[in-house]
């Protein structure tokens, strides 16, 4: 056992944690904006999936992963528009809409992929993001390999945390978003356009989720396979709640979920007595516990899940 827990083990564990937490973090940051404005977004999973596919398509068509990202964003926006129209404009239940978005996305991605690329025994490969070592920093002992030899989307994801914080807490937009999510009527009385803010936030969640999906298909790989998101969108929803709807909290939650996953893989590789399913369950159980008492409903935006209709 002692040979497992070497310094090297911890370093590589940490690196894996970071990689595994990035898609969760990206999607969860998007989900945070949506929920902060009062719209529950369970459709993150579907938006990630379509982002993963569109990213590959974009890179395939143009040869540039950056344009792939733009495609992924477009795909995320597409589904987000559906979600926003249903929830904000029509006032349909947010959760049910999100589920429908997910179902739709599973079918649509698989359908489009096959219609475009046919059936192959080897993957359709596209240009993807290369790891970008940051000169100087990458050679730092210990943390160099963990933190500074990732691909650009990883840096981007972590940069988005303070940026999201900045937007949420330091700007007029952020204050408007928080106001709309807490008390849409009050927002209305100070002249904030509730519908517009909610639309923008849901679209933002689509953009973030799309990038999260593209991170999987273009950042981690250079291909799309059916269902490649594998439930990470739902974990992201959990991360939003567990992170108490705050960027820093979401960062912590994503890292915890990423760590649980990374640890699970490694413990299985070296063999421990604990069934690996226990580790897989962990993020969800943690969320349930957090939801009952630890994270009271008081920390949730007060108007979360409630449609707002002007008289």
């Amino acid at each position, binding site marked *: 056992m002692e040979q497992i827990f070497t310094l090297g083990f911890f370093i590589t564990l940490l690196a894996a944690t970071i990689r595994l937490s990035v898609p969760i973090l990206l999607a969860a940051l998007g989900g945070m904006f949506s929920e902060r404005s009062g719209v*529950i977004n*369970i459709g993150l999973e579907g938006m990630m999936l379509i982002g993963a596919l569109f990213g590959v398509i974009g890179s395939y068509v143009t040869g540039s992963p950056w344009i792939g990202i733009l495609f992924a964003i477009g795909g995320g926006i597409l589904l987000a528009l*559906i979600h926003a*129209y*249903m929830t904000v404009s*029509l*006032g*349909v*239940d947010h*959760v*049910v*809409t999100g*589920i*429908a*978005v*997910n*179902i*739709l*996305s*599973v*079918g*649509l991605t*698989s*359908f489009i992929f*096959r*219609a475009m690329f046919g059936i192959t025994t080897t993957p359709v490969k596209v240009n993807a993001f290369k790891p970008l070592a940051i000169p100087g920093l990458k050679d730092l002992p210990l943390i160099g390999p963990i933190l500074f030899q990732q691909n650009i989307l990883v840096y981007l994801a972590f940069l988005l945390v303070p940026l999201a914080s900045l937007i949420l807490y330091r700007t007029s937009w952020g204050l408007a978003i928080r106001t709309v999510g807490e008390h849409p009527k009050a927002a209305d009385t100070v002249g904030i356009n509730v519908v517009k803010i909610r639309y923008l936030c849901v679209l933002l969640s689509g953009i973030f989720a799309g990038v999260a999906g593209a991170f999987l298909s273009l950042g981690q790989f250079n291909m799309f396979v059916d269902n490649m998101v594998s*439930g990470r969108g*739902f974990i992201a*929803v*959990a991360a939003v*709640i567990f992170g108490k709807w705050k960027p820093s909290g979401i960062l912590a939650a994503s890292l915890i979920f990423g760590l649980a996953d990374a640890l699970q893989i490694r413990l299985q590789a070296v063999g421990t007595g604990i*069934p690996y*399913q*226990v580790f*897989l*369950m962990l993020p*969800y*159980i943690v*969320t*349930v516990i957090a*939801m*009952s*008492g630890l994270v*009271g*409903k008081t920390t*949730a935006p007060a108007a979360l*899940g409630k449609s707002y209709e002007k008289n």
Partner: protein
Amino acid sequence: MKKDLLLINLVVPILAILAALVLGAILLLFINVNPLEAYSVLLFGNLTSLYGISEILVKAVPIIMTGLAFTFAYRTGLFNIGAEGQMYVGAIAAVVVGLKLGHLSPFLAIPLSLLAALIAGGIWGGIPGLLKAVFGSSEIIITIMLNYVAVYLLSYLVDKPLREKSGFYPQTDMIGENAFLPVLIPNTRLHLGFLIALLFVVLVYIILWRTKLGFELRAVGLNLHAAEYAGIDVRTKMFLALALSGALAGVAGFTEVGGIHHRLLDNFSKGVGFDGIAVALLGQATPFGVVLASLLFGLLQVGANSMQRSVGVPANIVYIIQGLIILFLLGGTILARRYQKKKAKGVA
């Protein structure tokens, strides 16, 4: 007024289904498939043989149960998104009973495993119910989270403690034959579970509309304040609603292992829990509506397989159509209501 109800209850669902099919047809044209041909198989292909029809019914059985589960909670104003997980724990309990007591008389083995599934599903639904009643936690999030916990619990059980004796596959041994649900029509798979599901349809209808408890649950769902005024203990009722809802979903697990798989497998009958939400909404959250909508979903899913076999259409098109039906139905209902309101205002 009658005409207005007609619009929402009849015209909107039909238009929603048609619109979804039309959009699906456009996609089919993209891959050079004749949509008329594909849809004729999808919708009609399995209605020509007894076996085809029986398969539709077989498919519908668990969806009816998860649909009932969603309906039951929905009528109390709660969203149970956890039918999938509740189905899995129900199946686990049913299989454990089937393994241990499958040698008993069917008259004992079957009711006992049904009971076990009810209890297990009830507990799995009761947890979010309890958290809702005590802490006011969102039952939506908790039920979703518990879905995953159930999936991994199942995976662990078939991987380790309940793994078959030969140890080959991550699955349990077959349950005792006396715990199998008898087949109703020879040479089909239509099993007793269908009748059991119909029984629960009637039971849910009776509970909701013919008993004191149902009266209370619906009152809580429709108007919390009035329910309080009428002396109903709102929190207890919320807990009860989710626990009973979970029990119903647990029965879906029972019918699937007792009637189809006869053992526990990883990830069996995936997605049935979510289908339940769709059929409940499509069936206007009435037990009989759930049956009809489940039959429609059964038809679509069995038809999707036929469509794939004979026309070569990828089965995933059905996911698209299902997703679109839900969206169009919900959106359409609200648009229709708005239209009515506008009209009413114009008249007044």
